[in-house]
């Protein structure tokens, strides 16, 4: 099964589970959790079912395309269902069976792993799902986002698509994967990994990154005051990515790291609070 067939299979499966199929968000994010289709929709009390592919950027994980399993951009398949169904573990396991994985000959484990994203004031309790030693999914009961306690509780299922595909194709090198019958992961992504690693680690201009950060932060503050929460949140996502770039450039000291993450979080928390206050009114 090629990577695009894997994606189609999951799209069909979760669509059958009543999920709306969102399209990837058009900004750099570190994880599917950070996109508005997750972040805002978990905050209110209304039921919500969504799933989507989200390309996720982590500048620090770049390896110039030389490491067979680490890249600065990978793809997540993100599922959010609120409230969490009581048989959600079974639904998830069936999605693996639906991919043709015969679980009677493998070792599938739900291994304690509580997830946390200090930048967006979010945490949850759950597991990393491990298949024969390979972490293929993060499975989380989302407890808090933007510093707001979540109720009803959403469940978040995040498949690591490259990892899962490596398992399905039995390959040791991510770049050997088949994206489709004719196009390999190497064809599509190797040049991107090389160039972005070079940019992230060596060329990104620290001064200009800092300035961009300050601009995006100022814009976010202005937008929060005007009550335009979605654009304000976009600005926070930009801040988060710029911070990650600065970090990859080795320009962030430990103290500064804590301080900057705190800055972004306090913006995100204000957005979440305003959003919830509005929901309370309607």
């Amino acid at each position: 099964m090629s990577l695009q067939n894997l994606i189609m299979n999951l799209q069909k499966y979760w669509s059958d589970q009543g999920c709306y199929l969102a399209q990837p968000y058009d900004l750099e994010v570190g994880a599917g959790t950070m996109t508005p289709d997750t972040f805002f929709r978990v905050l209110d009390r209304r039921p919500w079912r969504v799933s989507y592919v989200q390309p996720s950027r982590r500048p620090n994980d770049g390896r110039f395309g030389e490491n067979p399993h680490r890249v600065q951009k990978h793809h997540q398949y993100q599922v959010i269902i609120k409230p969490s169904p009581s048989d959600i573990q079974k639904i998830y396991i069936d999605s693996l069976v639906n991919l043709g994985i015969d679980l009677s000959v493998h070792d599938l484990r739900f291994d304690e792993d509580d997830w946390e994203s200090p930048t967006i004031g979010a945490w949850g309790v759950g597991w990393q799902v491990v298949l024969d030693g390979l972490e293929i999914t993060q499975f989380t009961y989302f407890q808090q986002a933007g510093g707001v306690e979540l109720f009803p509780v959403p469940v978040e299922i995040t498949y690591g698509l490259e990892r899962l595909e490596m398992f399905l194709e039995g390959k040791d090198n991510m770049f050997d994967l088949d994206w489709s019958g004719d196009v390999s992961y190497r064809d599509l992504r190797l040049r991107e990994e090389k160039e972005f690693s070079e940019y992230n680690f060596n060329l990104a201009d620290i001064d200009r990154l800092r300035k961009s950060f300050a601009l995006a932060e100022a814009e976010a503050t202005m937008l929060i005051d005007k009550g335009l929460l979605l654009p304000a949140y976009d600005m926070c996502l930009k801040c988060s990515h710029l911070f990650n770039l600065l970090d990859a450039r080795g320009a962030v000291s430990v103290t500064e790291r804590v301080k900057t993450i705190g800055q972004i979080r306090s913006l995100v928390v204000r957005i979440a609070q305003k959003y919830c206050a509005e929901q309370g009114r309607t």
Partner: protein
Amino acid sequence: MEFLLEINTEEMPASHIKAGLFQLKGKIEKELQANHITCLSLETYGTCRRLVVVGDFAPQQEDREEVIIGPPKAVAFAADGSPAQAALGFARSQHTEVGRLLVIPTPRGEYVGLKKITKGRPTDGILCGALPGIITSLSFPKMMKWDEVNLRFSRPIKRILCLWGGKVLTFSIEGLKTNGLTSGHKLHSPQPFKVISFREYRAGLKKNKVILSAEERKSMILTQIEKRLAPLEAQLYPDEELLEKLTYDVEYPYVFLGEFPQEYLRLPLEVLSVAMREGQKLFSVIREGRQLPFFLGVADALRDRKSLIRRGNERVLRARLEDARFFWEQDLKVPLAQRAAGLRQVMFQEKLGHYEDKSARLKQLVAYLCDRLDEKKLKKDAVQAAELCKVDLLTEMVREFPSLQGKVGGLYAREEGYPSTVSQAIYEHYQPAGLEDLPPSSHAGALLSLADRVDSIVGVVGIGVQVTGSSDPFGLRRHAGGICRIVLDRKLLLSFDHLLEKAFSAYGDGLEKSKKEIIEYCRAFLGQRLRFIYEGQGYRYDLVEAALGAGLDPIYFSYLRLMALASLQKSPHFEPFILMAKRVNNILRGLPPYAVNPDLFAEKEEQELWSSFSIIRDNALPLIAAGEFVKAQNMIFKLEAPLSAFFDQVLVMAEDRRVRQNRLALLQAISGLLLEMADFSQVVVEGEKKERAS
């Protein structure tokens, strides 16, 4: 009658399972006791998916007989035995007839009363009422909510099975009703099935691929490990913590043996085993202390027919080891000394500055320790180790595997060809990491660890952080425990006050609290840890107090004092001596100090006491200074006879002020000598216990 409860959940962490079972048992026991229900047995079992309680309880509460006392007999009945108003009123108030009243003898005389027998209620009703509260009140290290359920628990509850005498005991928790069903292994035999007894439950689980007992799972794991290792003539690199975790993580353990390419054996054992353990929960395999290119894993599976589990784990481990090798090689490209400049980027604590400052302080402290302990030869290497010991915080390896801090620095120092004293000291300077861990094996490592911990304690206390029962964010207890264990292990003759002063001055004027406040807090804090250690070793509480009461200068002497007290407590001289020492203390309580004037001694007994004391003191003091407390104490026992005679024959509180004060001064001098040995007023002796008891 048999009671069975199974709370079926999604996968709980091992620590939660133990906490849950412990509380369930305690709470159910308490409930039974409070309700006077006899409990013949009560056991718990757990896997990652179930908390199980099985018990044998009486079918109902014990009948309770209650005696209600009414008016005195003399008031209740007239002389002729006819009931008076008081008896009639009492009977009416108790809804009974006068004829059923009894005469009850009490210490205050005879009273009229009534025996009431309350029939015990059936146990099932009581359990039904109590269990929902018990289950919802369980607390776990981290709690969560799910769905729209108004309950916090370890992980979502799927099903509750509860049986009483073979029948379902019905109650519900947040809309989830109990039933008589359980289910087997989540992947291999998930169909629910009905049970009516624990025997059937346990057997049914086994048939459906769940081993209920943790001991049984553990022994299955160990047996299989042995079987896999026997042909290799190899051993497991012991890891109790991992074994314990895996025992609870799986319901049906299957052990597999995997291999990795020889080339990764160039990585140190520490790195290999942490890559296996922390990443994938695999055990290392060793032969004669050397890593072999094999590992052992525990799967939650029946077997590995097609070797898919083994091969999958091998593939993932290879990628991990490749990463570790990348870090190892990258890190070694920048020598530690060159990397050290980066420490000014790494924060130790916001108010206490960066690790560069800490390293500078550690150099001072280690140099001081070497001078103080006369370790001139060690000084150069120890100071170099202090300079480099924190540099590995900047390496990729420690960023990836934080638990390897210190060790990684030591390994890199060794690779770079530093003297082994330096690399060993860096390697060991976080030891002992906990109660189970050993103190550093090298002297330089011990001094560096000591310096690091004293620096942390003084700094953190100096910015106003206090340790409370539940809050110890900087791990000061662990640091203080580490200091005590190193001092005792190395028999270091250090004064804690001097060490604290030195650590304080290394901070310059960077601390908020005053020197006096810090030292007093730290001294008391360290005393507590010593007390904890000594009591943990089984020494008598009062002897520990007596030993610590004589001060911590040097710290190690508190241990020698305790040893002396413990070995002398069986001596026939001990008890009379303690009583005498206490008598001296009692007389002196609250008095100002006086000076002895030997010319004023008039009585023979006081002259004799003074001269015996002078000789004993002159002999004992050098022994005390040398830490020879048993010898000193045997010397001091000799004071008992002249003191006894003194108390028998001489009136301390003489009429004449000068004579009286001179006698008190003599006793003060004796008391001062005794306090060099121990604070004897803390010791509890038999004679006293009897007095207190009566």
